[in-house]
């Protein structure tokens, strides 16, 4: 056996393994453990990132919902305001129309009164002319003058 080279290769092999086993084993084990650790930390990181992304998404979804709600509220407010404005405008229009009507009616009444006094004055003038004509034609001069004088004196009292 001792004269077999392969036996000495075996001896060398055993020595080599004995020398290398511990340090190499430790090194390899450490490397493999570090790799596992790295994978674990990567996974954790990825999970955390995912969580953060989900939180962000939820936040933005909430923001979007809020914005939608705000927009709806703004639209409703605007609509209500517009309605109120249009109601106000209608009321204003009605009052102004009423006032104008009243004004017009007053003017009409005034014009009527004016017309009546005008007509009455015209009638008086006409009557006075007619009376003068009749009296100048039918009366003698003396009487005529006396009558005219009295008539003239009486006239303002009768008319007013």
């Amino acid at each position: 056996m001792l004269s077999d080279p392969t036996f000495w290769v075996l001896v060398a092999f055993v020595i080599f393994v004995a020398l290398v086993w511990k340090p190499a084993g430790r090194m390899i084990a450490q490397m493999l453990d570090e790799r596992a650790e790295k994978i674990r930390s990567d996974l954790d990181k990825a999970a955390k990132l995912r969580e953060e992304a989900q939180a962000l998404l939820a936040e933005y979804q909430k923001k979007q919902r809020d914005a939608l709600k705000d927009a709806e509220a703004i639209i409703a407010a605007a609509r209500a305001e517009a309605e109120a404005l249009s109601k106000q405008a209608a009321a204003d229009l009605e009052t102004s129309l009423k006032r104008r009507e009243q004004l017009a009616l007053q003017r009409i009444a005034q014009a009527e009164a004016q017309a009546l006094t005008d007509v009455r004055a015209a009638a008086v003038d006409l009557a006075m002319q007619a009376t003068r004509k009749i009296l100048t034609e039918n009366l003698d001069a003396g009487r005529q003058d006396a009558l005219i004088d009295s008539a003239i004196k009486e006239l303002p009292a009768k008319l007013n």
Partner: protein
Amino acid sequence: MAEQHSPLEQFEIKRLIPVEIGGIDASFTNSALWMVLALLVVSLLMMAAMRQRALVPGRLQSMAEMSYEFVAGMIRENVGDEGKKYFPFIFTLFMFILGANLLGMIPYSFTPTSHIIVTFALAFVVFIGVTAIGFARHGLHFFGFFVPAGVPKALLPLLVVIEVISYLIRPVSLSVRLFANMLAGHTMLKVFAGFVIALGVLGGWAPLAFVVALTGLEILIAFLQAYVFTILTCLYLNDAVHLHH
């Protein structure tokens, strides 16, 4: 000292189960046995490593994953994305050669990769496969591979001949590299172990220490040659896939 040992007797092929099919010797030899063992060890190791399929790998699983990533990275760097579909073959090749090389390091075992017929068979499979892939992908354009671009017309015939020869020599160089490394390494181990015997108890320590160092070197070479064989396969595959030097 009754028996004489030759450093080369470790490479002797022995018929373990004699089989003869139609006059052809198809015996199950020690070489075949150790190839089967390499296959079994690699397969069982891989299956055992990946049995748990943990998200965070244990040590054994990490080793399997690293060998996977190692070969995948090699293919990605040398062949690109088109090389992905050849991953199973390249990975098998690498793990088989590595397994055979490392099992051969165990004393009293046998190293199939120290036989040119084994490495040549592997290299020839690679050569045929790569050439077939080249023709399948590029058809007759694959012959353009032998015509270097930007060369004076006068030199072209000579260069085409050189290119063809260098292409045809690939399986030989690929197989000889692995076989010669294994043969030389194991021979050296046995030669120096023989010195231990020759120098006896007094002087034998020095060659023994050398054999210890050589064992470490040979384990390194076992990895290195498996790597070299695989990366050359990748490069040849790249030539066939992309058709340029």
